[in-house]
C-alpha cells in the first residue's frame, strides 16, 4: 500500500464521476494547444514570407482582392501588357526586375490546373533572385517542408534552360501536375488544343505553383484569346526604395492598377493570427473558470461522498496532512492526465487541421506540452486545494454511528 495506490484505486473505482471534470480540462487544453500550435506556424510563415518577399511589389487589376501572394494572378481580371513596358521604360529607382503573368484554368484528364504565361527571362531571373533557393520554389522555411524541395540539379537545369530559351511549344510543369498526369521530361502534352513538349518538371514548392503549367506568355495570350493582357506583374523591388515610397511612385505611373506590397497581402493573415491568439487567451480564461469550477465542484462532492472513508482513515491514524495529500495527488494526476491528453489531441488536431484552416504546415511543438501540463496541473491543484483542505479538517466522528 502506497499513497499512489490509494489514490489511483479510488480514481479507477469512481472514474465515471471524474469523467466530466477530466473532459472539461482535456477539451480546454486541447483547444489551447491546437490554437497555439497553428498560430505559431502561421505567424512563422508570415514572418518568413515577409522576410523573403518583403521587397516585392505586385501590380494587379483594381478589382483584385488580397489573399494569397502566390495566387494573386489567378483572379481572372486583367491589366494591359503595356504596363510592363511602362514600368521597364520608367526611371523608377529600386526596380530590380519585372515578371508579368497571365493565368488560365485548364482541364486535363478531368483535373483542373492553371496554365500560366510567363516572359521567360524576367520571370525566371526574378524568381531566382528571391532567395537563391531556385525558381518557383517557395523560400526556405516559409512553412513548407525543406525536405520537399526536390533535387537541386533539376532546378538548376530548369533555370538554365528557361532563362535563355522557352520556345512557344515548350512548357515547364509543376510537381503536382506532373504527379497527377504522370508526366516526365521530354513528354508531350496537349493543352487547349495545342501540343507542348515538357521541358522540365519543377521541384515541389508547397505553393500553388505546383499546380501550374508554365508556358510562354504570348502563347498563353493567344490561347486565352484575350489579347495582350496580363493578370499581374511581380516587381522585385529594393527594400529601401519601397520604404522610400516606391509603391506610391508605381501607383502614380499606373493609376488604373492596384499596387500592393507583401506586407499588405500578409495583413489579413496577421489579423487572423492575432484573432487566434486572442481566441487562445479567451479559451485560457474560459478553461480557468469552467474547468476550475468543474474540478472544484467535483472535488467538493468527492470529499462529501468520502467523508466516512476519510474519517475511517483518521481513526486508523491518518493525520490531516496525509488526507490533504490524498486529494492533492488526485488533482495532480487529473492535471497531468488532462495536460498530456490535451497536448496530444490538440497537436493532432493542429497538424491535421492547420493546413486546412491556416494554409500552413503545422508540426508538433514539444514546448507546448510543458505549457499544457503546467496550466492543467496548476488549475487542478488550485481548484482542489480548498476541497482538499476541507477533507483534511473533517471531523473523524463522522465514522461512528452516533454522537
Amino acid at each position, binding site marked *: *500500500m502506497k499513497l499512489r495506490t490509494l489514490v489511483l484505486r479510488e480514481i479507477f473505482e469512481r472514474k465515471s464521476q471524474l469523467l466530466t471534470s477530466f473532459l472539461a480540462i482535456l477539451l480546454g487544453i486541447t483547444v489551447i494547444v491546437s490554437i497555439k500550435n497553428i498560430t505559431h506556424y502561421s505567424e512563422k510563415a508570415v514572418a518568413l514570407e515577409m522576410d523573403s518577399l518583403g521587397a516585392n511589389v505586385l501590380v494587379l487589376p483594381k478589382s483584385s482582392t488580397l489573399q494569397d501572394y502566390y495566387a494573386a494572378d489567378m483572379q481572372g481580371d486583367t491589366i494591359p501588357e503595356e504596363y510592363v513596358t511602362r514600368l521597364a521604360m520608367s526611371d523608377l529607382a529600386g526596380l530590380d526586375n519585372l515578371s508579368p503573368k497571365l493565368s488560365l484554368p485548364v482541364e486535363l484528364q478531368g483535373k483542373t490546373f492553371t496554365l500560366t504565361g510567363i516572359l521567360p527571362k524576367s520571370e525566371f531571373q526574378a524568381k531566382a533572385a528571391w532567395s537563391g533557393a531556385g525558381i518557383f520554389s517557395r523560400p526556405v522555411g516559409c512553412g513548407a517542408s525543406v525536405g520537399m524541395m526536390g533535387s537541386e540539379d533539376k532546378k538548376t537545369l530548369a533555370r538554365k534552360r528557361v532563362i535563355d530559351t522557352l520556345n512557344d511549344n515548350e512548357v515547364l510543369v509543376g510537381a503536382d501536375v506532373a504527379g497527377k498526369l504522370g508526366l516526365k521530361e521530354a513528354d508531350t502534352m496537349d493543352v487547349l488544343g495545342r501540343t507542348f513538349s515538357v521541358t522540365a518538371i519543377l521541384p515541389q514548392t508547397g505553393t500553388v505553383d505546383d499546380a501550374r503549367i508554365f508556358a510562354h506568355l504570348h502563347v498563353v495570350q493567344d490561347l486565352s484569346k484575350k489579347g495582350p493582357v496580363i493578370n499581374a506583374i511581380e516587381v522585385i523591388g529594393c527594400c529601401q526604395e519601397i520604404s522610400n515610397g516606391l509603391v506610391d511612385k508605381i501607383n502614380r505611373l499606373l493609376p488604373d492598377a492596384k499596387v500592393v506590397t507583401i506586407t499588405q497581402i500578409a495583413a489579413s493573415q496577421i489579423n487572423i493570427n492575432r484573432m487566434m491568439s486572442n481566441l487562445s487567451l479567451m479559451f485560457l480564461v474560459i478553461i480557468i473558470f469552467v474547468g476550475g469550477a468543474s474540478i472544484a465542484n467535483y472535488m467538493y462532492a468527492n470529499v462529501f461522498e468520502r467523508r466516512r472513508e476519510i474519517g475511517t482513515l483518521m481513526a*486508523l491514524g491518518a493525520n490531516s496532512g496525509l488526507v490533504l495529500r490524498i486529494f492533492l495527488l488526485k488533482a495532480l494526476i487529473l492535471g497531468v492526465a488532462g495536460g498530456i491528453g490535451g497536448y496530444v489531441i490538440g497537436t493532432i488536431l493542429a497538424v491535421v487541421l492547420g493546413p486546412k484552416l491556416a494554409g500552413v504546415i503545422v508540426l508538433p511543438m514539444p514546448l507546448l506540452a510543458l505549457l499544457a501540463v503546467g496550466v492543467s496541473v496548476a488549475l487542478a491543484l488550485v481548484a482542489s486545494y480548498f476541497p482538499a483542505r476541507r477533507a483534511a479538517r473533517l471531523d473523524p*466522528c463522522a465514522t*461512528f*454511528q452516533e*454522537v
Partner: protein
Amino acid sequence: MLKMENVSKTYRHRGQLVTALNGANAEIPEGDFVSIVGPSGSGKSTLLLMLGGMLSPSGGRVLLDDQSIYDLNSDGRACLRKQKIGFVFQTFNLVPYLTASENVQVPLYLVGRDNSSQQARAEELLTRVGLSDRMHHKPSELSVGQQQRVALARMLANDPAVILADEPTGNLDPETSQQVIDFLEEVNVEGRTVVMVTHDPRAAARAKRILRLDCGAIVSEKPGRNGRHATAGRSELMLNRVEHATDRRIQRR
C-alpha cells in the same frame, strides 16, 4: 491504562444545548474487557470517541498510559491512534475500492511499514481470521461477516494495546456475532484492553465488566461472564495465556 476523569461533553444541536457526557469517570486497566451499554443517546459512542482521541471533551481529562490525550494536538492524537489503538466499527468502514489485503495494509502504511512487510502482515492477519482465500476480494465481493472479519484483521494490523469496538455485532447474524465476540475475547486474552459499545446483552455479558451509561454518566457497573467471578472457573491454560501475553506486551514496551 485508560482513564476518564470527570469528563463532560456538551454541544449545541439546533440551538439547544445537549449534554452527551456529564462528569463521567472510569478506569480501564490494561488487559481489561469492558462493555459499555445503555439506551440510545446515553453517550456510549461519545465516550468511545473520547477514549479514541477523536472528540475533545468540554471538561475533564482522558488519559492513556498516563498521557493526557487531549493535551496533544490532532496530529499527535492521530499518531497515538495508529500506534496504540485499534478501531472496529458497526458498519466495518472498509475502504470500498481496496481489496481485503489492501484494507489491512492501510494502518501498516500509516506507520511507515514497507510494501513487502505490509503484504506479509496482511496475509498473516487475514489467515488468522480465516480469509486467506479472500485476500484479493473487494468488500463488495465479501459477505457481511467476512467484511467484519477483514475489519478485525485491520484492527490488529499494528498490534494495538487498546481495542475500541463500536457495536461490532450490530449488523451481524447471531452466529457471526458469536465469532466476532470470540475473536475480541481472544485478543483480550492476548493482553489487549478491549472497550466495546453494544446494545446486545449477550455480547455485553461476554466482557469482564459491564458499564451502564445513562444521561451521560456511568450509573452502574457489574461483572460480565468473563469478569473476576466468572473467570474463576476458566481453565488454567487460559490464565497462563493471559499472563504470557501480558509479559509479551511489557517486553515490547
